[in-house]
Structures are given as C-alpha cells and as structure tokens.
C-alpha cells in the first residue's frame, strides 16, 4: 500500500515536472515509438464514412437470403496466408 502510494506520488510529480498543461492533440504528431510499423491514411475530403440518407427507394430481391450464396468472390481469395515476411514494415 505505502509502496503504491510512493509510486503514485513519484509518477504525479513526474507529470508536473514535464509541465505539459496545455497539450493539444497536435502535439501527438511524431511521438517516438508510436508509428514505427504502419502508415497513415489520409482520409479524403469527402470521406465522411457514412451513407447518405435519402428519400429514394431501392430494390433488393426479396427472398435472396434463402438462396444463400456461400461463395466468396472478394479479395480474401488473394490472401496467401502462411507466408512470413519479416521486416516488411511500412514507415511513415
């Protein structure tokens, strides 16, 4: 208990010492260690990420779920799987 109390005290003193009371999120950029392996995706200006609401109808055949199609025709078929590639890290 008292050990923890000391650890906490030391930790909080450490924070005060760094004097970081007006940090903004921009200060995060380029912090060491954080982005060693993966890149950054600049989301496009129009990339709102959600579908638009609309007052239009759409068609999707009723009963499609019954004739279930199991076949995956997407990009997952391209995944090799077990191959190991060390050091294929994307720096940004």
């Amino acid at each position, binding site marked *: 208990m008292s050990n923890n109390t000391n650890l906490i005290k030391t930790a909080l003193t450490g924070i005060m010492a760094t004097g970081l009371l007006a940090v903004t999120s921009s200060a995060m950029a380029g912090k060491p260690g954080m982005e060693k392996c993966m890149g950054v995706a600049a989301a496009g*200006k*129009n990339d*709102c990420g959600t579908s638009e*609401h609309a*007052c*239009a*109808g759409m*068609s999707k055949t009723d009963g499609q779920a019954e004739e279930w199609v199991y076949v995956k025709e997407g990009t997952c078929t391209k995944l090799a799987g077990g191959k190991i590639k060390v050091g294929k890290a994307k720096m940004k």
Partner: protein
Amino acid sequence: MKSQNTISTKNPYNKNKIQGCGIGLRIDHFDVIEEQKPDVPWFEALSDNYLLEDTLQRNYLYHIRNDYPITFHGVGMSIGSTEPLNMDYLKRLKKLKDEVQPAWISDHLCWTSAHGVVTHDLIPLPYTTDVAKHIVDRILQVQDFLGEQIVIENVSSYLQFKATDMTEWDFINEVTSHSDCKLLLDVNNIYVSAQNHKFDADEYLFAMPAERVAEIHLAGYEDKGTHLLDTHSRPVTEPVWDLFKKAVKHVGDVPVLIEWDNDIPPLERVLEESATARKYQQAVLSKESPNGH
C-alpha cells in the same frame, strides 16, 4: 424569438431567396461546390445527414450555407408513426435549424420507424379520417416545437392498404388544411403512384391545394416492369415533365428542386436537369398568368 448565433446573422439569405430551380445537396458534390461555387439558386440539404455534431458533413454544410440559400429535407421525422415523436431527433433538428437557418423544413407524409425500429425507408399509410387526425396532431406538435410551419411531401407508393377509405388527394387536403402545414408537391411521386395504382395523375394533381405548395420536387424513377420504383437514379422522364408543366400551371411560380440520390452523376449533369426544369417552368409561366402567386 429565434436564437441568434454568430453563424445565422452572417447568412445573407432569407425565405424570399428560395426561387427558381435548385438541386439536392449531395456529399459527392461537396468539393466541386466549394471549389467552383457553381451558379445554383439554392440547395436542399438532407437534414438527417447533418444532425450529428462535429462531423465533416456538418462542417461542409456550414460552409455551403454561407454561399447559398438552404432548405432542409428529412426522412427521420416519421410523422405517420404510432410511436411517440422522436424528441432527440427534433431537438437536433431544431439546433441545426437555428445554426443554418433554412428557409423551411420538409419531411414526408408516411412513416419510417415504429416500435423502436427505424426502417430508413418511406412506408405509406392507410388513408382514413382517423389516420389523418393522428397525423394532424403530430404535425401540430412538431410545428409547435420547431416554432414554424413545416412542409409535408406526398410519397411514391407500391402498395395500398385494405383499410384505406379515401383517396390520397383527399387525405393530403385533410392533413394539410387541419394542421395548416405547407405542401411539398413531388410531381414524380404522383406519376409513380398513379402508374402503380392505376389512378389518374391529373385528378390527383389538380386536387392539390395550390396555395399551400411551397416547393415542387422532380426526380427519375426506374421501370421495374411490374411497377415504377422511385429510385432518384435517373433523369426526369417525359411523362413527368408533362405533368410538371401542368403542375406549374396549377400552382404558379413555386421553387422547384431536382433530387438525385442513387447513381449520382457529376454536378453539371444535375444542373442540366434543373436548367431544363427552369426552361419548362418559365415557358408555362410566360404563357399563363400564375394563379397561385
């Protein structure tokens, strides 16, 4: 009476500035609108896309409304639902309205949610006196809450209910007159429903209360063989243009809007469509003395 914030006082537009043929504001076109500031008389923003705060969409809307007059159009009010009014939705709508100050707010004469589930689609109602009363009640509540008259649009439909005991046009007259709301006359929707249910589009159109029409909608449907589907994915068709000309004759010089929501083409193509609407509208207006103006 209305809360005045910094954005709203900057907007040079007011209700009188909604005129001519505008188009629906779509995310696909944000960049080109911002960069080229095309000559568009006004944009109709689908309000439901902007109700969450701190989103990219909302920021774009703040920008665009500084350059263009705006109207709001929604699907989430679910005015025909039997569940309580969605007050969270209405509060958000009111806040957005105070910020953006649209000339008016419209939604549809139908239901989109019920029993806690949201379909995100426009589902028709049985047309009866009781249902009309129910809706009048709700429109009055909404108008009271928003502090203004709202605009209600006739929808396309693909089915009719056994319980219906009056025509759709009588139903619309009943609802609009008793709630004293405005009407958004979707000419394409009249045509689609008339074809789907084999009634006379002209009879429907000329039964509309011309003095209440705040706006006209035009869009393109898809012919599915057994029915027309209101997909907003095509140019306006010839029979709808014909009906539109009759509508202009009937309601006079009312703002017109092109809706394009699926397979959205480049902005210029949508603007071509609104230019066509303007041309037809002007031609009718110059021949006729407008009766509803």
